[in-house]
């Protein structure tokens, strides 16, 4: 089993995980973290079949869980999700150019300022969907191959997307145009042609962006489009995120790597899966006692880190 995606509930007490069979499992973090946790607390509270294909990406709004994988995005109400036989609230499919093959959706991104959802995946376009009306407002074209990951630049309403074509593209949401392109594989310092040019993971911190995948994990300064720090990690990274003054990354290999912005490896914390595909930091203000880092990947287990330094325990699908 492979767990592709995770999402924390708005109350912070539950974690949803989606796997390659199309199932979504809801775990109760508050039960598993409490002092009377037993073995059953580490099992899902409820599991249901959400999609026909793998659930590649999930995000949570303040009332819904949105999941996507096989070309459709479905919404589930968090308040109802724990009951058996939960049905989706709605399902939508972005307007694809060909109706023969439905391309998969690899990444979802919420843009809270305009209350919309961005979907990206196999058809190389970024589709924007307004969450209130369900209408698809924009289709941003520019990538020449499918898109792996998305990131939001909060201050200016810009979206970054990274794809198989090896480019990280910055889209300005107001003009719906490509504002900047960084072709990572063209830079000698970080390109690794033997791994390919695909960009598997992307994270941004307004002025800075870190991306990795085929090329080495690199920190970029966005305004000058220059690579400033290359992180010496041979294995391609599949998920990266900024956290306080660190950059956390995970990919092939069972450890979560903690990097400092200067390029030093501060720590390597082993998890229980042979490879990791997604990291999730529960920073919901409503549940500070459930503030954990969860990691999941090529196994049926979700590792829970209460203190970033070691794995506390694992939830199991």
């Amino acid at each position, binding site marked *: 089993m492979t767990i592709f995606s995770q999402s924390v509930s708005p109350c912070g007490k539950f974690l949803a995980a989606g796997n390659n069979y199309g199932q979504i499992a809801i775990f109760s973090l508050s039960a598993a973290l409490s002092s009377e946790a037993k073995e059953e607390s580490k099992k899902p509270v409820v599991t249901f079949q959400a999609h026909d294909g793998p659930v590649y990406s999930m995000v949570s709004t303040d009332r819904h869980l949105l999941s996507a994988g096989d070309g459709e995005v479905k919404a589930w109400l968090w308040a109802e999700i724990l009951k058996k036989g939960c049905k989706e609230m709605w399902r939508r499919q972005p307007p694809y150019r060909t109706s023969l093959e439905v391309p998969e959706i690899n990444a979802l991104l919420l843009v809270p300022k305009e209350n919309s959802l961005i979907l990206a995946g196999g058809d190389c376009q970024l589709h924007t969907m307004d969450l209130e009306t369900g209408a698809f407002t924009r289709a941003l074209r520019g990538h020449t191959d499918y898109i792996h990951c998305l990131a939001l630049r909060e201050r200016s309403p810009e979206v970054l997307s990274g794809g198989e074509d090896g480019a990280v593209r910055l889209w300005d949401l107001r003009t719906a145009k490509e504002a900047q392109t960084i072709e990572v594989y063209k830079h000698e310092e970080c390109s690794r042609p033997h791994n390919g040019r695909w960009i598997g993971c992307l994270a941004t911190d307004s*002025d800075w962006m870190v991306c990795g995948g085929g090329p080495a994990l690199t*920190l970029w*300064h966005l305004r*000058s489009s220059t690579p400033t720090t290359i992180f010496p990690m041979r294995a391609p990274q599949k998920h990266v995120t900024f956290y*306080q*003054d660190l950059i956390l990354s995970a990919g092939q290999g069972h450890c979560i790597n903690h990097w*400092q912005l*200067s390029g030093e490896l501060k720590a390597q914390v082993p998890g229980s899966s042979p490879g990791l595909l997604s990291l999730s930091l529960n920073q919901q203000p409503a549940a500070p006692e459930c503030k954990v880092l969860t990691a999941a990947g090529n196994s049926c287990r979700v590792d829970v880190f209460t203190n970033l330094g070691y794995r506390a325990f694992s939830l199991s699908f």
Partner: protein
Amino acid sequence: FSLPFFPADEVIRKRLLIDGDGAGDDRRINLLVKSFIKWCNSGSQEEGYSQYQRMLSTLSQCEFSMGKTLLVYDMNLREMENYEKIYKEIEGSIAGAHEKIAECKKQILQAKRIRKNRQEYDALAKVIQHHPDRHETLKELEALGKELEHLSHIKESVEDKLELRRKQFHVLLSTIHELQQTLENDEKLSEVEEAQETSLEMDPKP
């Protein structure tokens, strides 16, 4: 018989707890009661007196033991007060420590932010260092500009010289041509004159 207010087993329990083995004050009081009865029933004056003395000593022993217990009780009360005070102090310091922890956590976050900023600065500085210094580049630009000016001056002067030479040659050539023309003209004139003379000689005067 049992006292109306205290349940019998409670009293028994308490008495057993305090003095279960019977080798203490309870026994002494029992002995006192027995010896009092014996003294009442005693015969001779001396025996009665000695009994009386013995009873007085037992009584004083009991009083002493009671006094000791009272003092211990007092001490316990004061210890309790002392503990209460210490307890309150510790509670206060725990609350203070909690606040300090919260404060320190905030400071850690701040320090982390500062470290992050510093590292971002370092990263950019490294990149900038790779580019040459602006002063030097400006100086190089200035030097190059001066050279360019100098060279264009030279070019101008060379062109002027060329022009001058061209003009001079032109003058020279045109003078030569004129001279050539003049010489040709003169030759032609002299040829014509010669021809006229020969025709006069050939043709005698009539």
